[in-house]
């Protein structure tokens, strides 16, 4: 898709030499965009390390980054097992939120009465803090994993539902008229008009829901505590705090953050890949 855009641009504009100052400036900026954050993070870690060493802060209060790294390596196998559990929980709840949110969003877009009667339930589910419902769900659902899944799903589901419903209604009214004029079937209207119009809304929701699914998973794990054999990263944080193993707490915390960052990067990349060639939100401005 992006290739065709470039070709069209090449048609419209004369060839620009590679030494164009604008291109050089752009390259330099791209390099800076990677170098600057990494440098900043390394500096912050160095400062942390130095302050802990200089003030002789005991490791059970604030461990030095080097100790956290060491713990990460030493506990690698067990931490990875927990990380895999949290990843599975997060991704499954996100997938179910997408399926449920899109399906219900489509029904809402098709039928106003249905939306009016069901929307309050969705809102109630959204505004009630999951941490307050989680204990109930853990009581009613005997399988812990399923209970955790439901908790994370509740959190991630709403933005997808609401944005899908809004997005499907957001198609330009003149384009709707055009489709009517050419006697488009309902399927054609959905496929060629409503879904593309809804995509930017859906992508925005996906970015939010990805983060929310992780938060939901972590919160639910906290409520569930360390029960059960399979436990995720949040349970490891809880467990380490009981045992006063602060470095391992930090190590697990680091993995949770890392997971959040990875989810964010993937959803952002996906959004750019899907919308980059046409939607204002993802188009890079020139000049």
């Amino acid at each position, binding site marked *: 898709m992006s290739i065709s*855009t470039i070709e*069209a641009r090449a048609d419209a504009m004369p060839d620009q030499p590679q030494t164009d100052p604008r291109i050089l400036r752009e390259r330099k900026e791209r390099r800076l965009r990677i170098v600057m954050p990494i440098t900043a993070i390394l500096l912050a870690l160095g400062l942390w390390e130095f302050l802990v060493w200089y003030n002789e802060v005991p490791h059970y209060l604030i461990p030095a980054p080097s100790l956290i790294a060491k713990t990460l390596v030493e506990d690698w196998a067990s931490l990875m097992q927990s990380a895999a559990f949290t990843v599975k929980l997060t991704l499954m709840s996100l997938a179910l939120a997408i399926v449920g949110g899109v399906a219900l969003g489509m029904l809402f877009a098709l039928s106003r009465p249905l939306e009016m009667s069901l929307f309050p339930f969705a809102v109630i589910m959204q505004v009630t803090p999951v941490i307050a419902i989680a204990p109930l769900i853990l009581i009613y659902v005997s399988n812990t994993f399923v209970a955790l899944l439901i908790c994370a799903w509740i959190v991630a589901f709403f933005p997808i539902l609401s944005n899908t419903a809004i997005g499907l209604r957001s198609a330009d009214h003149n384009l709707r008229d*055009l489709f009517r004029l*050419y006697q488009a079937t309902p399927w054609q209207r959905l496929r060629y008009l409503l879904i593309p119009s809804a*995509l930017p809304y859906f992508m925005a929701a996906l970015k939010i829901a990805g983060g929310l699914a992780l938060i939901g998973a972590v919160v639910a794990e906290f409520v569930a505590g360390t029960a059960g054999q399979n436990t995720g990263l949040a349970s490891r944080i809880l467990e380490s705090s009981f045992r006063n193993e602060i470095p391992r707490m930090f190590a697990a915390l680091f993995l949770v953050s890392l997971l959040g960052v990875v989810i964010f990067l993937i959803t952002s990349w996906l959004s750019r890949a899907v919308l980059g060639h046409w939607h204002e939100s993802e188009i890079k401005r020139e000049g």
Partner: protein
Amino acid sequence: MLDRPEASNLIEMRDVGKRFANGTVAIRDMSLTIRDGEFVSFLGPSGCGKSTALKMISGLLSVSGGQLAVNGHPPGQGRDNADIGFVFQDATLMPWATVFDNVYLPLKLSGRSRAEARSRVEEALAMVGLANFAKAYPRELSGGMKMRVSIARAMVTRPKLLLMDEPFAALDEMTRAKLNDEVLSLWRSHGLTVIFVTHSVFESVYLSSRVVVMAARPGRVVHDIPLPGGYPRDASYRMTPEYTESCRMVSNALEGTMDHVDLNH
């Protein structure tokens, strides 16, 4: 019901009315006959129902009174919508689709494959001078080019009737003049019938063989003015006494419709 009109009458409106659900009367008792091959402008102040009339002819809006027949059929019934091309005030392109796919849309909706439609789409793009822009996206085009894509899309089904709803209102004067000439040449070379909605006296006089002047509250036809000027027309037509005289005549007719318009609001 309406008798089948003579072959030369493409559109017949008899006492056509349009009342919206909220009670607003958009059009009252509009009677009009448009013959095959005419270039007719609907001219009037905003709120005079000119766009409403156009949408009723296209079948996008229902008629709430009187009879309307396009090619002998009530709109939306017993006819192929491919016979009608519609150009909106905005270019109304799908931003996610290339120029090619935008123009291909009407053929795609009628079930034609890309391969089958390719030559038709390329022909339509060549018609508006955008043959090299098939792969571009709408956001890469200027306002005038977007409008050309919109015209190519309307022409791709090879319609008999082209309905244009203030298509160039948002464009600058020079682009508008150029597109006016292009529409005129399309009309002549393809044997089209064009109904052109505008609020510009000069545009309506330059283009049309006949100007229908409408008034507001309620929307109705107040004058139906055949224009003397022949075709082909180009920029030099604007210098002729015929053009000046037509502009004066149409302006006066339009001013008559504004008498009871409250200018204070």
